[in-house]
């Protein structure tokens, strides 16, 4: 009977003690506790009160988890947000300094996104941001971080990645975005959406998070000035 019940609910079993084996089975299947019958009021009160305490505790935990997710995630793309990116960059640079390995930061900006939005509408713009976010999220290793840095800009943190390898990765990402089929629309021949990428690597380009971000930002604008859809840094 317990099968098919909503296990978000707190489930109690009311049964006689002689059903011991079956009661244990129910507890293993997710029931929280047992009220033995015939019911002893005082004991039943305690079991129900404890069950409700537990229910409230889990409801509170779920709420906390939701707030935590809201604090560190971008609602449009589902990626991490700017706050989380900064936090991970601080931790990442500290670890890179301590253990002496390279770390690369990339800033990725959608080219002419304002025009794309004006031409196709904001819903299409949001769709494009989600598509690029999905592509970036699916292109990284477990130890990397990808976040929506703000507006039409994304950030990547790649520990244990030297500049040369990072440039190859960035070029691959540029190509992959350009080939995103969902951003091609024959009825609207505005050309594919592209990205420009600025790359900065610790320790070569700086030894502090702000320095690396500044360097990646300047490299990103150099890529824009050089004609967009390219990598600099």
């Amino acid at each position, binding site marked *: *009977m317990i099968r098919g019940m*909503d296990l978000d*609910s707190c489930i*109690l*079993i*009311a049964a006689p003690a002689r059903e011991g084996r079956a009661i244990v089975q129910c507890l293993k299947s997710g029931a929280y506790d047992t009220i033995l019958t015939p*019911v002893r009021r005082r004991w039943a009160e305690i079991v*129900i*009160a404890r069950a409700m305490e537990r*229910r409230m505790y889990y409801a509170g935990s779920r709420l906390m988890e939701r707030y935590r997710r809201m604090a560190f995630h971008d609602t449009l793309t589902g990626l991490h947000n700017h706050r989380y990116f900064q936090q991970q960059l601080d931790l990442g640079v500290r670890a890179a300094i301590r253990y002496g390995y390279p770390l690369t930061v990339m800033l990725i900006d959608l080219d002419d996104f304002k025009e794309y939005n004006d031409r196709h509408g904001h819903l299409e713009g949001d769709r494009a941001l989600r598509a690029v976010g999905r592509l970036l999220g699916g292109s990284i290793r477990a130890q990397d971080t990808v976040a929506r840095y703000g507006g039409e800009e994304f950030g990547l943190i790649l520990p244990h990645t030297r500049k040369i390898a990072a440039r190859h990765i960035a070029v691959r990402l540029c190509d992959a975005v350009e080939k995103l089929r969902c951003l091609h629309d024959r009825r609207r021949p505005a050309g594919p959406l592209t990205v420009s990428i600025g790359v900065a690597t610790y320790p070569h380009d700086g030894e502090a998070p702000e320095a690396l971000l500044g360097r990646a930002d300047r490299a990103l604008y150099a890529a824009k000035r050089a004609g967009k859809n390219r990598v600099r840094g």
Partner: protein
Amino acid sequence: MNDNGGKALIIGGEAALRRMLVGLCGELGLSARGAATRDEAGEELRRQYQDLIILCDGVR
């Protein structure tokens, strides 16, 4: 602690046992309903009264 507006659904068992548990939950500040079977409780009631579910004869 239980004047929290929680909702309890008691399913199965004998009517007397259900009445007794509904009364007990009420005394503890829960809004409680009883139903002889899961079908009688229905999806809507199960959705509404989902804080606490007491399955009587649930082991059979």
